[in-house]
């Protein structure tokens, strides 16, 4: 059997010396991570000093220090409370929500192979809205169920419906997306129905403000809960980083690379749905973060999920900390729901990213 020789102009490049390549990469990665985390800490530290109440920067940090056990508080209880009970949890939750929503968006986009997917594509936020509205307007659950609790239950119901529907319809990726759309429509309609028939003007205003995504009124409890869920979900997603890479060419290609497609899909969908449900229950449906930040992060760091996931989390956290600072100061004395600001900012940012990535394609 004749063998045609390879074309003469094929070069063979020897692989680079392995040791130094890996070494410099670890060093470079380490520096980047430190810079990213430093940026986040700096953002939080600065954001906490900004607000309508005029409290000087040294005073702000003395409050923080005193609560961390270093030094005595020297402000009145209310001013101390403004910093420690209002601004701190709020800024920290902004970071957690930004990170969480961005990570969920990344996973959704990779798993569903849809660059327009976001954490809410599975109807989780619509379910949360229905749950919240049912508690506030219909008073279901008496005083025992908080708005956040109702929202969480609603979110889980919606996700359960999506799983059930997609399983009945075959379980593949596009079936999941379609089920999500159906659930989204159903629960949005339910929310509208309850609001239209049972709410009075004041109740509606309050609930709608919250549904747009609002970090006002969050407390330390929300911060701890959401941080815990974020940590667990992030770990799960990082463990599946390689698997998510494998989905680049579709689920069959992933299966051919040794990925257990059905199990991976369930695990990741459940993890992201749980995180999204927790975040939406605490802070309403903050839009655009989960859609835009993954694209921004990919533009920064490429598509390998092992780096993409942490970078997206950091970028999302920093982004939302600053957007929330803007939302609570731009229209002083009122507050703009942070979801409104993310959408307003998100659109031009999205266009910019698309424009830049199109040039390279």
């Amino acid at each position, binding site marked *: 059997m004749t063998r045609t020789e390879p074309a003469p102009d094929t070069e063979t490049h020897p692989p680079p010396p392995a040791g130094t390549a890996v070494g410099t990469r670890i060093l470079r990665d380490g520096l980047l991570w430190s810079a990213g985390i430093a940026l986040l800490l700096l953002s939080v530290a600065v954001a906490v000093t900004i607000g309508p109440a005029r409290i000087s920067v040294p005073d702000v940090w003395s409050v923080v220090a005193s609560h961390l056990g270093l030094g005595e508080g020297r402000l009145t209880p209310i001013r101390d409370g403004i910093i420690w009970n209002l601004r701190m949890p709020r800024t920290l939750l902004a970071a957690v929500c930004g990170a969480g929503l961005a990570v969920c968006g990344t996973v959704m986009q990779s798993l569903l192979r*849809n660059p327009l997917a976001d954490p809410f594509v599975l109807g989780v936020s619509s379910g949360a809205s229905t749950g919240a509205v049912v508690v506030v307007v219909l008073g279901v659950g008496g005083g025992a169920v908080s708005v956040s609790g109702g929202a969480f239950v609603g979110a889980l119901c919606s996700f359960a419906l999506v799983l059930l529907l997609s399983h009945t319809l075959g379980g593949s990726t596009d079936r999941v997306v379609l089920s999500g759309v159906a659930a989204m429509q159903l629960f949005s309609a339910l929310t509208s129905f309850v609001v239209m028939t049972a709410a009075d003007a004041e109740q509606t205003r309050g609930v709608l403000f919250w549904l747009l995504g609002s970090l006002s009124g969050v407390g330390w409890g929300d911060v701890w809960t959401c941080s815990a869920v974020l940590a667990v979900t992030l770990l799960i997603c990082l463990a599946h980083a390689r698997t998510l890479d494998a989905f680049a060419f579709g689920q069959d290609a992933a299966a051919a690379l040794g990925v257990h497609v059905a199990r991976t899909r369930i695990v990741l969908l459940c993890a992201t749905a749980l995180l999204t449900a927790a975040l939406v229950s605490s802070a309403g449906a903050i839009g655009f973060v989960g859609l835009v930040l993954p694209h921004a992060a990919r533009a920064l760091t490429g598509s390998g999920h092992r780096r993409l996931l942490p970078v997206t989390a950091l970028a999302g956290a920093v982004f939302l900390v600053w957007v929330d600072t803007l939302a609570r100061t731009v229209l002083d004395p009122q507050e703009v729901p942070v979801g409104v600001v993310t959408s307003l900012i998100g659109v031009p940012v999205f266009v910019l990213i698309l424009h830049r990535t199109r040039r390279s394609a």
Partner: protein
Amino acid sequence: MTPETHRKGTPGDGLRATRITREAGGRIVLDGVSVAPPSGATVGLLGPNGSGKTTLLRVMAGVLGPGAGVVTLDGRTLAETGRRAVARRVAVVDQHADTQIDLSVLDVVRLGRIPHRRPWSASGPEDEAAVHGALARTGLADRAAQSWHTLSGGERQRVQIARALAQQPRELLLDEPTNHLDIQHQLELLSLIAALPVTAVVALHDLNLAAMFCDRVVVMKEGRVVAGGTPSEVITEELVAEVYRVRAVVTPDGPDGRPSVRFLPGGAVHARYGHDERAGP
């Protein structure tokens, strides 16, 4: 030449498909298909569209369940072997591979190392060596940073093959890899595959290419294997008429005396043997 008969598997047998039968939408897609490519050989899978080639390759890769029948790797079924272990042995190149994500050539080829890496580990020196080796073999070393979306169809095929090579497989399944390539690249690619020390099963349309490069050839029609053996044995005028419904002249004028097929115009040919009286190849 009769198709390989079923035999109890023994270790070292490589990838074998035994009596695979699959239905889809009431239609039989594969009907008792058995394929046992000899180790290190390049096996061409021939047949017209709809004969079940793609389905067979997917079943052999483990992407589709075997329905009735079994696929074994070294005597153990794919399920027993485990997906990752199978992926470390068997690499698949699909007809159409596309993605929306902005990946570079290097990123795509690196995907081939996924079956070899543990969940939390970073990529190690052997991964890098495999990737660079694969790039070199497919002539893509200088294009490592190029974006997937700027590649032509043929270049994309080569990148997918590089990815498959990065898996360091012992078995390679390719579904019509020469579809988008110009003739020079078709020849290059097939000679590369034939030269590789892997067992390759390549679905092909082009009879002449199959004749030139394959050690053995399996011909399918309507979900059944109708012929199997060396190209000289299998590629005959009768077979071309029977399976492809066209007239041809087959002469042993190819390299090394292999068959060379020259098609004749003149419209479709009815099967010389009707369905009821088919005497077999």
